């Protein structure tokens, strides 16, 4: 038993060193660039920010990550294999200006859509992974986001893999109308099968997780984690304030508020996220001696 723990600890130390070395190699960053914190407005050297996992060293704000930066922070180095990378919408881009906006965003972000899916290893444990990216159309869910996430879930069910989804979304992709709405049902149905198969699903909420995504796969995790202070809610704050005709509490719809209301399991800081995920995956590894 003790041996087991030693091995685990060794592995963990190895990962830690691997990750920190990973983080010490700035990738493709123009030198001497600064970025200002969206919360405290302090100006931070880009390189410092990157080494600090894009957490503001001044105020601790967890700044927006691209899907690929998130992957880099989370998975065992080099283990990510992307699925359906180039999937884009064939029809239904008829809404005025929609097609152009999609193309513009694709050029700007290097992404084809608002989610990146695939498989990866965390601490040596293979899992299916979907990471939404709010740089692409505010992470809104249209048919492609729904389809990619559904395929990722279905793959996990078929291969008996645990599933991790990093959520961030402004809600449904309005431009795709009703077909964006039904993606909520489609992804939830796929999760029902994953759940029935007795597999682990960890939902990780990041800023912001709202609308249709909050009311589907985001809230269906066996375990729901969230980044500090991120916005989590279904309806928009302004709409609510005008409905109830009163001031909302300052922390309304923050992760801390939602934790207190009983809807998420833990708030996990970015620096701990990889370790916490690995710990959870380990605790759910299929035991040969059991059942």
């Amino acid at each position, binding site marked *: 038993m003790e041996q087991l723990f030693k091995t685990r600890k060794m592995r963990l130390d190895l990962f830690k060193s691997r990750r920190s070395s990973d983080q010490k190699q700035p990738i493709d960053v123009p030198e001497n660039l600064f970025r200002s914190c969206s919360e405290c407005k302090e100006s931070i050297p880009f390189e410092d920010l990157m080494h600090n996992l894009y957490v503001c060293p001044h105020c601790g704000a967890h700044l927006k990550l691209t899907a690929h930066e998130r992957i880099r922070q989370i998975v065992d180095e080099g283990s990510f294999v992307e699925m359906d990378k180039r999937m884009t919408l064939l029809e239904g881009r008829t809404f005025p200006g929609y097609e152009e906006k999609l193309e513009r965003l694709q050029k700007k972000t290097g992404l084809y859509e608002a989610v990146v899916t695939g498989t990866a290893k965390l601490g040596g444990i293979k899992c299916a992974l979907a990471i939404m990216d709010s740089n692409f159309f505010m992470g809104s869910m249209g048919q492609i986001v729904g389809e990619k996430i559904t395929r990722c879930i279905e793959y996990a069910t078929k291969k008996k893999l645990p599933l991790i989804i990093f959520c961030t979304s402004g809600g449904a992709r309005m431009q795709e109308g009703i077909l964006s709405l039904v993606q909520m049902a*489609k992804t939830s149905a796929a999760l029902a099968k994953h759940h*029935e198969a007795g597999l682990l699903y960890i939902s990780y909420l990041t800023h912001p997780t709202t609308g249709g995504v909050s009311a589907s796969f985001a809230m269906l995790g066996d375990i729901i984690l969230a980044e500090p202070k991120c916005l989590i809610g*279904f309806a928009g704050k302004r709409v609510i304030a005008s409905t109830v005709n009163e001031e909302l509490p300052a922390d309304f*719809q923050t992760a801390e508020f939602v934790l207190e209301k009983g809807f998420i399991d833990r708030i996990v800081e970015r620096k701990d996220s990889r370790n916490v995920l690995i710990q959870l995956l380990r605790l759910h590894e299929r035991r040969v001696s059991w059942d």
Partner: protein
Amino acid sequence: MGLRESEAKIASLEASLASLESEDILQKEAIVKQIEEIRQTAYTHMDAWDSVYLARHPKRPKASDYIARLFDDFMELHGDRFYGDDGACQGGLASFHGIPVTVLAQSKGKTLEENMKRNFGMLQPEGYRKALRLAKQAEKFHRPIITLVDTSGAYPGKGAEERGQAEAIAQCLQVFADLKTPVIAVVLSEGGSGGALAFSVADQIMMLEHAIYSVLSPEGFASILWKDEKRAAEAAKVMELRAQDLKRKGVIDTIIKEPLGGAHHDLDYVIAQLDEELLKQLERLMKKKEKTLLSERYEKFRRMGQSYEGM
């Protein structure tokens, strides 16, 4: 001239008709003819915005009208067993042609007082959780479920957020996807956003001809995309929220015809069709093996929105 204007015009013509002396026969006939012409034009050339108008028409029948006419011995059951009893969600047991069914309805009121109690048909988390409780009960007893959809959307309230309406809706989507009993959804009037979808994960989805079903209200849509709520009519036209659009997209299965002018002009006509179609579908679905039922339900939603390239 849209339907709103046509109906206003008809109303004013009817008023002048009533004010005419009985001897003005010719004049009367002319007005009657004019009314009939307007009516024909208006009701046979309706656009999406006209459907929005009809779907929200004050006289449009409510879920309770359908429950009273479609089912025998409706016994309403209350409560979510967690927090409260949501008046916007009416659920219970009933007999449909001798078949015990569970009915889950989104209920708007007919008077202001009733609407206060029913929150204008906008569910709180308790409403979704009541539906979930009764749905699981129906599953236990292999009892088919019929849902009646009529909501402008989830309620943008403080308490609804605090008590997790996102979670409650998500649970509906997941649980209904795998519920081991037949489910039929009927979109009666307004099917707005996640609130409507939560009641629409079904084996068969029917929709009244002039009901609407959309990702968001036209007002909300215009407000988000064009920052101008007043462009709702324009939004309605691009949103493809009518039964015919949804059938084409494969989101609904059956359209229930409405009489000229909308369901409130002849409810019996609507009930007769709905009754027949519900019975037909219920009998069809009840014959299926559980495994087939569930895999077909899965495939139904799985197929929605499959137009992509470049995998």
